[in-house]
């Protein structure tokens, strides 16, 4: 569900991190520009006209927040997602106040980064609220909170339905435990008990939607998280 027409600029001084981001985002279907200093990035903001900027805050010579403020001062139309290891509430507030659209603390999970990038670019497109979501022979009716597999109504708890809906909405892409903790459980931080709860809840959901059927839809991606898709 990426937006291939979108251009993403990455300003990140750590070369390995930058390389990994470039190749990951490029393979997700975006056009990617990369800069390792604030000056270079600033030049690319003007010359490349990207739609989305991934901004690291600790840059050599110049603070990432300065770059952000300058961009906002000039009124350039660009979404900005801050990527940083400064991850306290105050840092987030300062980043968002300075004009960022979103904030992701390092280390983050790559699926979450992609999901947030999508969300930022989608936010400005007309909303498409589908009447139903389909993955293989599984269909969800978000309005009435019903789920069917092969035409059969599944008996799900509210939490299980939320989880399934979230997985379905991510359209086959992997979602990490961080994303689940934040978006389904609404937990502000992630810690051991929550991870266990997520694993157990996934196992229970799998028993209900997959175990009676031959085709398994709910996949575990080692080290990354889970995805709902046809194998």
């Amino acid at each position, binding site marked *: 569900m990426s937006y291939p027409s979108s251009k993403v600029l990455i300003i990140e001084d750590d070369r390995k991190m930058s390389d990994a981001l470039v190749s990951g985002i490029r393979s997700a279907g975006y056009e990617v520009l990369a800069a390792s200093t604030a000056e270079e990035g600033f030049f690319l903001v003007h010359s490349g006209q990207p739609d989305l900027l991934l901004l690291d805050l600790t840059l050599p010579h110049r603070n990432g927040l300065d770059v952000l403020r300058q961009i906002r001062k000039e009124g350039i139309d660009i979404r900005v997602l801050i990527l940083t290891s400064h991850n306290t509430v105050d840092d987030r507030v300062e980043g968002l106040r300075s004009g960022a659209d979103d904030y992701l603390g390092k280390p983050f999970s790559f699926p979450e980064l992609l999901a947030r990038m999508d969300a930022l670019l989608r936010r400005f497109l007309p909303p498409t609220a589908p009447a139903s979501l389909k993955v293989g022979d599984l269909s969800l009716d978000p309005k009435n909170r019903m789920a069917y597999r092969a035409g059969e109504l599944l008996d799900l708890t509210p939490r299980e339905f939320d989880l399934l809906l979230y997985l379905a909405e991510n359209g086959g892409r992997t979602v990490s435990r961080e994303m689940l903790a934040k978006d389904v459980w609404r937990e502000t931080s992630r*810690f*051991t008990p929550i991870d*266990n709860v997520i694993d*157990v809840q996934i196992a*229970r959901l799998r028993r209900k939607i997959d175990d009676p059927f031959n085709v398994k839809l709910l996949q575990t991606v*080692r*080290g990354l998280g889970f995805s709902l898709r046809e194998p």
Partner: protein
Amino acid sequence: MTLRPTNLRTRLTLWYVGVLALLLIVYATVVLAFQYGVLTRQLYHDEVQDVVTVEGLLFFDQAGELRLTQNYYSRPQSHLLVDRLMEVRDLSGKILYRSSTLHNMALGGPLREGEGDAGFDERLVRLSDGSHAFVVSHIHTMQGRTVVIRLGYDLGPLRDRMIQFFLMLLIAIPLALALAAVAGQSIAKRALRPLEQMTARAERITASNLGDRLDIANERDELGNMARVFNHLLERLEQAFRQLQRFTADASHELRTPLAAIRTISEVALAKPTNAEAYHEALGNVLEESNRLNQTVDSLLLLARAEITPPGESQPVFVIGDLVTEVVALLEVLGEERSVKITQRQHELATVEVRADRGLMRIALMNVIHNALKFSPRDSAINIGFAQPEASWLHISIEDEGPGIPSEEYAKVFDRFFTSSERSTANTSGVGLGLSIAKLVVERAGGRIGFDETFHQGARCVIRLPYNSTVL
């Protein structure tokens, strides 16, 4: 610019000398005034006696002239009277006698109304040569004639004596003050010497000899007390420092373990070309290990956050029972998987409000209940109860039916990175910081947490929290 001595010893001495100077000046003034008063009284008495003596010596001769008996000077005790000033007038004011010492000057002006009528009137008189005299007047009748006797003494000698006395004080006081300053300086130096020693000692204490303590010369004096308090401070510092050292060592160990795994997995995978599936497997493992690293770092940050939370009193209140219900609802699913039933006993105490950082307290409760769940066998129960054994103290107990805690580990389970020798079973996961976080959070809220050593059907964790009974 004001000149202020920064040295405590000099300041003490200055204060001391200043106060002493003030006292001496007040003292000298009082003494001078008193002395003057006493001498004046003495003069008055002498004069009264003189008048009485003179009355016996005065006589009118045949010519009606007033005279003084001539053998007067032969009396040895009367030589003092040589310098007395005397004048006798009759009631019309006419001068009948004037002593030669007056050199024809008047001793006071014309007669006053009723002068000397009622005894011995005293007054101060200025003579025409500028000197002053202290005069008494007395009315006297002899040989049928009434006269007024005025007798006085020149005040010059008295004043000279007073000035002498004053000059003596003027020299003696600064001398005394100078001596006092020297003495004060040396006394202050002696008194402050232990302080200097302590300063020198304290200056030598650094992180490497934090075990050193200050010497206490006298336990009961102020400096001894200060040294004692300072030693307590050092004690606490040392403890905190050791704890930090241990913690840093533990933390680096805990961080190094997943790092080592990541390194080894990657090295093995890259050692020789292999198939995609093996790479996939290796990368999955690397990600899992890095997740573990991340969790450890998150937990450490959480601990740091809990350490700097303001104490419970400055926090908003919330209903503790609601929080417990919320946590149980979240973790229930873990119990259901293994048929562990979590029951929260209904109690009116569940509605009391406590003061704490709610978010942190939630994590604390979650860690404790999660811990109980981890060690619960299949088909068992976890009971959460409320009690109030002491006024204003709420006890929340979490009982599981697991293996319990070995007696030697009761004190250690809350240590950071502690994993039990017996309890580290297959189903334990996490980084060994859960209970430490819980302990820190509960203590920051002014409470206590511990396992009940008298409970043997499993483990029983008791969280004691203060609550304000007036909010009930």
